[in-house]
């Protein structure tokens, strides 16, 4: 479709304006005949009109073509080696002279709680206070069941007693460590925005599982359906993977966590309910508006502060890490701190599997043969009976 009016209004101006580089790039500018530099007239006003309007002048001498002829060809993602050299130089300077200068006082670095989380021994009231774990909700939103954890009211906001927080956090850390020591499966859940990093880190340290998106209702109560495609593996007391359990795993029911750590119990009531149906203990961060009876081991703290969540998840993750370490050390010295699940048994080797299959095949063949014989026999007897009937006549 020809847009005549638009071209009349804007065409000239658009042609007269210098083309932006982004357009020049898309043209690839490979004109088959490049303008001859000798043919070009200096771009004065008088020359301009002669160039554009005279019939004698070739099209390659026009202003627009000249400009395009001068444009540099574009290369995608120029491989300029200078960038690499500069970057390496920067790294060298940082490495050599980066630590020079005044001593930096201890200060809060946001990423530090993820890189090097505090251990249960590092939990102090100062740390908890600094991470704002004492701030509760407005007094009107409180759940009276939390009154035992509340220190007081300040400016209409409940203040959580940090002594209670520290005590409960240490107790929860003990629980996590114990479960990890006995080879339990720990699930860390934090489904609020921004909690994913600390949840994943804690699960990584404690050797457990993480969940930072919506809890799919029924993952525990209907796990056989929901987790049908999720793979599992068999490991020994040294956490080495074992072969020969494929058949068992195929028919094994979905795994259930042995401990669930939840950073936002208010949004995850269904998860906690499923846990209680399956007798799975839970640890939860209880703010002043949450119900502490939803979880087995509450930790009264401010669940709206990401920094507080990082501290709590970090401490619990560290506790899990210590438990795992202790378990592996015990396994090294010959003690196994857990019992295998009933009916799992020893692995089946390939040769044994083939042997079993052969036995099964043989049994089937034998049965088929027996059936066949029985049918033949019945036919024979039926025929005899018929003959007998004839004899009666």
């Amino acid at each position, binding site marked *: *479709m*020809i*847009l*005549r009016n*638009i*071209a009349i209004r*804007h*065409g000239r101006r*658009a*042609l007269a304006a210098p*083309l932006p580089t*982004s357009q020049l790039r*898309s*043209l*690839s*500018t490979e*004109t*088959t*005949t490049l303008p001859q530099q000798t043919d070009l007239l200096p771009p004065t006003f008088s020359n301009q009109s002669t160039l*554009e309007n005279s*019939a004698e002048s*070739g*099209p390659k001498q026009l202003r*627009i073509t000249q400009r*395009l002829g001068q444009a540099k060809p574009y290369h995608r*993602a*120029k491989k*300029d080696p200078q960038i*690499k050299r*500069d*970057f390496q130089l920067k790294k060298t300077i940082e490495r050599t002279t980066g630590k020079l200068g005044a001593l930096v006082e201890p200060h809060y670095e946001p990423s530090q709680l993820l890189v090097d989380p505090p251990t249960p021994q590092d939990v102090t009231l100062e740390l908890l206070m600094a991470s704002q774990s004492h701030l509760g909700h407005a007094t009107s939103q409180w759940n009276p069941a939390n009154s035992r954890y509340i220190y007081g009211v300040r400016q209409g906001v409940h203040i959580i007693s940090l002594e209670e927080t520290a005590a409960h956090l240490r107790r929860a850390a003990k629980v996590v460590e114990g479960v990890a020591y*006995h*080879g339990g*499966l720990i*699930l860390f859940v934090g489904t609020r925005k921004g909690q994913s990093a600390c949840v*994943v880190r804690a699960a990584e340290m404690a050797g457990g599982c993480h*969940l930072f998106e919506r809890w*799919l209702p029924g*993952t525990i109560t209907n796990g056989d*359906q929901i*987790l*049908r*495609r*999720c793979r599992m*593996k*068999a*490991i020994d007391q040294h956490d080495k993977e*074992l072969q020969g359990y494929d058949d068992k795993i*195929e*028919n094994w*029911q979905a*795994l259930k966590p042995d401990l669930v750590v939840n950073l936002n119990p208010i949004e995850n009531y269904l998860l906690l309910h499923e846990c209680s149906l399956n007798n799975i203990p839970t640890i939860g961060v209880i703010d002043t508006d949450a119900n502490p009876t939803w979880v087995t081991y509450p930790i009264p703290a401010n669940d709206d502060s990401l920094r507080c969540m990082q501290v709590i998840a970090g401490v619990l993750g560290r506790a899990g890490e210590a438990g795992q370490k202790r378990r592996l050390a015990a396994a090294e010295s*010959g*003690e*196994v*701190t*857990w019992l*295998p699940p009933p009916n*799992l048994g020893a*692995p089946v080797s390939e040769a044994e599997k083939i042997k079993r299959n052969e036995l099964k095949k043989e049994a089937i063949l034998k049965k088929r043969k027996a059936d066949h014989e029985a049918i033949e026999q019945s036919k024979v007897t039926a025929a005899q009976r018929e003959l007998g009937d004839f004899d009666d006549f």
Partner: protein
Amino acid sequence: MKIAWLPAGVVEGVRCACLPRKMPLRPLIGQQTFFPGRRQLSTTPVRSASASITAASPISFVGGDKKNSGDATYKDATDEIFYARLVPYSPSYFTAQPYFIDDVLEVEKLAQKYAALPVVKRADAPRIAWITLMEYRDIVGERVNASKYKKVLHVLQRLNQIHPTVMPWDVKKKLKQYTRNINPYKNVPKPGIVDEGGRAIGVGKRKSSTARAWLIEGNGEVMINGKTLSEAFGRIHDRESVIWGLKATDRLDKYNVWGLVEGGGTTGQAEALTLAVAKALIAHEPALKPALRRAGCVTRDPRKVERKKPGHVKARKMPAWVKR
């Protein structure tokens, strides 16, 4: 084939046939085979010979002090027990889409690790055709949310912007994993050629008309089917249409046009010639393409006569409504 959308009963079989990755194939609960000993199915308790009352095994005093230390430890010496337990293959087990979540975490980890590397502008980064959501669903075998996959692609785009001279190999590997096998951006139209005689041909279509136009440097003569422009087209509007590409770029007196056009009516023929002339002009001067596009000479008008439908008088016209 979009395996993930097939009916649930078919999915597993097809996927096992298609995928190189080993998939756990567990029967549905309804079809689950009986697994003796796993669950007590009969309600009446069965007392087997082994379950009858037996004396406790003699107490071993070998590791006695350890057993009394409070920790419930089980000695390795009880050698009937084979120590094995089942654990999730991936820490994302309880998300129900472990492959996808692991992928997301891996990509995010890379982005975080190489956040400080120098980058190029987004437009300067090499253009990559990412695998589509459907292809990705087939690869991971999970129902991946479109918006979540978009977020992954966003992070990958950021990784792709790392300057090519400092691009780490693991990022390259990851990007390759998400790149389509076929690169559609390599598929560019061939540029027109100007032959030895200085002629360039362009082909254009509009409605039912087809036009070929040869463009040669000259002084503005136009011949259509052996006739001059005014003989070929009676309407001034049509005459203007034929040479619109040249007029919009101030090239009227710089080229001669020799055109052949057939089929359709006058408007169709004229506008088919517009396209043909514009294409031939681009062959001479590729730099004029944006100007010609703005003038509306580059795009093929796809509109055609709409077909007549049954029950209609014409394409859309309905018969008049009659009372009974």
